[in-house]
């Protein structure tokens, strides 16, 4: 392993397992993305939600299965904003890349601090509490700065957008992701795809 592989602690070689992780994560997150936007839409921001439910799923999938889980979230967001919301091409790609970056930042923080996704110790919980808002902020800054540069949104909505992503994503990841990590990490450990076996 070298470079990114070394940091994330997993092989980047594509095999059947990785394809299954990405396909299933994307399939799981896709309908959730639609419900999230219908449930709490944000006036003035395309395809944005005040409670981005799929983030809770793909953050968790990324912490369990690595980059391939994040890629699933990216595909789901891209398809959700593309087909179901029909917004312009750069909005799909922009949002999709933002949702790829966010869980990877979270995974990177966990790997660098050697925290465990089981969230059993106080240290793991603190890392989780810091990594999630940090990741959401990175995603929000990326998405809305690109929107602004393309003229899709205006300056007043840049602030609202970044704040919405910061709060909406963090809230969803904490509400949905925390019980998932606490209750299901032991179950997921049985899977050969779990990326923390090397620890």
């Amino acid at each position, binding site marked *: 392993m070298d470079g990114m592989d070394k940091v994330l602690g997993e092989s980047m070689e594509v095999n*059947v397992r990785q394809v299954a992780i990405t*396909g*299933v994560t994307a399939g799981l997150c896709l309908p*959730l993305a639609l419900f999230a936007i219908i449930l709490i839409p944000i*006036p003035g921001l395309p395809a944005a939600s005040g409670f981005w439910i799929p983030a809770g799923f793909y953050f968790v999938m990324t912490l369990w299965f690595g980059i391939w889980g994040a890629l699933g979230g990216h595909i789901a967001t891209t398809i959700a904003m593309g*087909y179901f919301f029909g917004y312009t091409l750069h909005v799909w790609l922009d949002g999709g890349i933002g949702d790829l970056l966010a869980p990877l930042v979270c995974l990177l923080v966990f790997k660098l601090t050697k925290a465990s996704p089981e969230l059993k110790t106080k240290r793991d919980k603190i890392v989780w509490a810091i990594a999630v808002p940090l990741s959401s902020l990175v995603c929000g800054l990326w998405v809305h700065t690109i929107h602004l540069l393309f003229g899709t949104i205006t*300056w*007043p909505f840049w602030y609202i957008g970044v704040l919405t992503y910061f709060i909406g994503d963090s809230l969803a990841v904490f509400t949905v992701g925390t019980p998932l990590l606490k209750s299901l990490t032991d179950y997921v450990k049985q899977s050969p795809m779990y990326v923390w076996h090397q620890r």
Partner: protein
Amino acid sequence: MVKTFFLHIEDNSPLIKLHPVLKILLLIVINIEAWIIESPLILLIVLTVMILSFKPLKVPLSRIARFLLFAVMIVQAIAFSYLLGSTIPGNIVLLKLPWGTYVSDMTLLYAFTMILRFLTMLVGSTLILAVMRDVDITYGLISMKVPFSIAFTISLAFRMASIFLEDYFKVRDSMALRGTNFSSGSIFEKANKYSRLAVPLMVLGVRRMMELTYILEAKGLGLRKKRTYLYQFPLKASEKLAIVVLTSLMCLSIVAKVSSRLLSFPGWPFV
């Protein structure tokens, strides 16, 4: 009737018989054209033609009605963004806002144009995706020289989305039968109730992922092996011509956008 990803389509629909490459190319062209075109009149014509083509192409028009709620969500987003947060010069200023932005006649026209662009993409994509089967995605992408692993993953994502949608309703109905009221409470209370669906859905997801891996490994699916395919989709001369026409149309639109004002928004550039 032919089963596609999202519905059943009459087997005599002209779109069903299209080569998978043409279906994917059409999807790309519709979305890229809507992205290039900024003229409200041309977008309106394209949108009208698309809506009118549902009947002769034997795709149920009611499909669009299912997306009405999504459409309203996006239309409000576009309208709010431009009405409250833009400074687009026009002939008359209709409203000045305290935070420094204003609404002109051109603001209204530009917001309307953006709404037309979104509707064009939604209606066009719905028309094509209504006739898309899983083999179309896999074979279409492979014909476009996309690696099999990517084609298979995208096809899997669509297939899994429709399966998880059914799972979602089953789990939600089970919770409702046990007394959960999803329609009461504030919007955040509702969101919290929906988030409780997460654990059973994730268990189903992880189990499916493991089963799928074992099945694919047992079948000896190799992503890098030289593959043979069950179906053959040879390109007819007319389909090759259609590919050339669609590709040329995209290139011509880009040239027209750069070199003339035909596809541009009236009043560009804003200063």
